[in-house]
């Protein structure tokens, strides 16, 4: 029987891992992720979840143990934040290069120094090029649903890649919301038992991940790129099927809101997307044609959808909870890169907001929208990158 529970996104992520019938969970604590692995420890110790729980001595080992487990033929899950994710960096490459369908919850947190435990996308975005699929969630229900969808996607033979399910620290991780947990049999029906491209098998003795010369390396990389392209096709389909079965759908790669007739579209990720919807409602009441596009999947990047969106609008404003030092926010960069070479382009302005947990409310986004609309009417952006609410 489906049931509705009220809990934090972190606990909900634990419920997601349980519902996905995860079999091995190597775990290491870090704020604000910790309550995910605590919840799973509770499930395992109470016998509610049949999984091996490995209390590893570092996040590096957590990811490598996930690799070992997935390679030996079981579904693996872990969770981390910020410095823990950075410590995993090398192992993230190893996981995707080994084509192992591991799913990890990343509770987004700022990187130090100084120590800052509050939300910021710099941790997961720094791992952009590791070959992991990246989902960004806007509420607790989406966290649960995305974990299930992620395994379905990653274990598809066209994909066989790992995925991060990202959620902002505190804004989601420690915030209670009602979440519908579908009936377990229906989840099992949607997500069959673990499927991977290969396993360590004494009857089929292969060497995995051994030395690969320039004669082959490039082809292996190309296959990962192809898998990302397949994921781009599959994500909307899986999202739709999930929606039909369980009632929640997120627009596939991008969740669009009031974009059809919009002059200006606000492009965000994560919970800023929820705030942006409120901004849109408020501005629409004043007759301003604003829409919101929340990038739900950052890798593979929804280039084609952005291109389609750009055809309808006069201006795009990106809001990045992230800065690539020496350039701009990644959303700003990727959106401009998606549009180049295409004639009749909308204006693009990049806004940096909410770093290290500074609040980004619908009011903050309203300021961004109004400034963008002004630039749009003037026919040019005053600043390519604008830092919002920066103190003098």
């Amino acid at each position, binding site marked *: 029987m489906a049931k509705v529970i009220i809990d934090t996104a972190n606990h909900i992520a634990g419920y997601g891992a349980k519902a996905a019938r995860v079999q091995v969970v190597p775990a290491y604590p870090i704020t604000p992720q910790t309550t995910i692995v605590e919840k799973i420890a509770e499930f395992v110790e109470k016998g509610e979840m049949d999984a091996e729980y*490995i209390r590893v001595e570092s996040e590096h080992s957590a990811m490598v143990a996930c690799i070992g487990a997935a390679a030996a033929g079981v579904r693996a899950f872990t969770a981390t934040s910020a410095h823990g994710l950075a410590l995993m960096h090398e192992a993230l490459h190893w996981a995707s290069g080994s084509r192992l369908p591991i799913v990890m919850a990343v509770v987004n947190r700022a990187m130090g120094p100084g120590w800052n435990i509050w939300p910021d996308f710099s941790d997961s975005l720094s791992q952009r090029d590791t070959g992991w699929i990246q989902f960004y969630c806007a509420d607790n229900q989406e966290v649960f649903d995305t974990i299930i969808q992620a395994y379905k996607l990653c274990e598809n033979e066209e994909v066989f890649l790992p995925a991060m399910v990202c959620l902002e620290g505190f804004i989601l991780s420690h915030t209670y919301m009602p979440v519908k947990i579908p009936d377990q049999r229906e989840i099992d029906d949607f997500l069959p038992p673990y499927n991977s491209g290969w396993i360590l098998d*004494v009857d089929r003795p292969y060497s995995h991940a051994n030395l690969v010369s320039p004669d082959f390396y490039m082809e292996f990389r190309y296959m990962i790129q192809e898998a990302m392209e397949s994921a781009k096709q599959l994500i909307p389909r899986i999202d739709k099927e999930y929606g039909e079965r369980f009632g929640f759908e997120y627009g596939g790669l991008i969740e669009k809101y009031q974009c059809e007739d919009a002059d200006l579209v606000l492009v965000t990720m994560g919970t800023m997307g929820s705030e942006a919807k409120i901004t849109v409602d408020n501005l629409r009441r004043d007759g301003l044609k604003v829409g919101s596009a929340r990038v739900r999947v950052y890798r593979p990047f929804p280039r084609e959808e952005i291109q389609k969106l750009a055809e309808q609008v006069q201006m795009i404003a990106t809001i990045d909870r992230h800065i690539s030092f020496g350039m701009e926010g990644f959303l700003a960069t990727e959106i401009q890169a998606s549009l180049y070479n295409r004639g009749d382009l909308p204006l693009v302005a990049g806004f940096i907001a909410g770093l290290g947990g500074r609040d980004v409310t619908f009011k903050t986004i309203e300021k961004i929208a109004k400034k963008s609309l002004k630039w749009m009417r003037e026919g040019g952006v005053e600043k390519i990158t604008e830092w919002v609410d920066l103190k003098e």
Partner: protein
Amino acid sequence: MVTIKELPQEEYLLKGHAACAGCGPSIALRLLFKALGKNVILVVPACCTSIIQGPYPYTSIGVPLQNILFESTAAAASGIVAALQQKKLEGVTVVGWAGDGGTVDIGIQALSGAAERETDFIYICYDNEAYGNTGMQRSGATPYGAWTTTTPTGKRERKKNMPFIMAAHRIPYVATACPSYPIDFVNKLKKAKEIRGTKYIHILAPCPTGWRYTTEKTVELGKLAVQTGLWALYEIEYGKFKLNSPSDRLVDKAKRKPVKEYLALQGRFRNLTEEDIAKIQKWVDEDWERYRKLASNYLL
């Protein structure tokens, strides 16, 4: 206890592997499979064995092998062991096979964690006393006085005592070995296979390329390391220390060859002074005083 005649004919270190001629670690690797058979999952970090196994799409190893990050052997093994437990798959032995750098330096954290968690696997450190893969830089296992490319005038510090560090984890089985004593090594592996928990075996494995000696002397050097007492063959089973043959006959200093006989054969010790050699001899004698006490029923 097997004898040399009882070793199986099957080979799982296959012909055409890419080790240097006279490679000590690859002798040990061959023996490993003779002892454990084919139901082994091998975990190998970056090390000489990354090369020895050959490049994709070939392999010189006849068991499933997971190559993994340099510092991560024991973590990968932990994941594999957990997966086998989850699948209730019995009869497969998970073996970590790592160099000294991957064990005593960069991999010590993951190994210590796996041992403390009582992970059910065999971890083998094949110790060629330097970073072989990258061209012979010093490691924490490089002995005092040895030339390496990063200690061109000889290492100033002593070798880390890794087996004792592992014994301090209170794991059920710690042993030392040397490919010059194949039956001793094979029997230790067979014993380790039957024990639940973390088993650690540290092999001193002569390396002609790094130690600077001619390739036909590998077995002789391993023997000299043991006969001089520089390397002792022992087991620590559930905390109880026991010297194995032939080391058990070397407690009396008069029975041990002078360390000089071992050192003089190797180019890496060319720069040692008489004082250095005397110092090394003194350290060896001190070690043996310790072994003597431990062997006469002192629990570690």
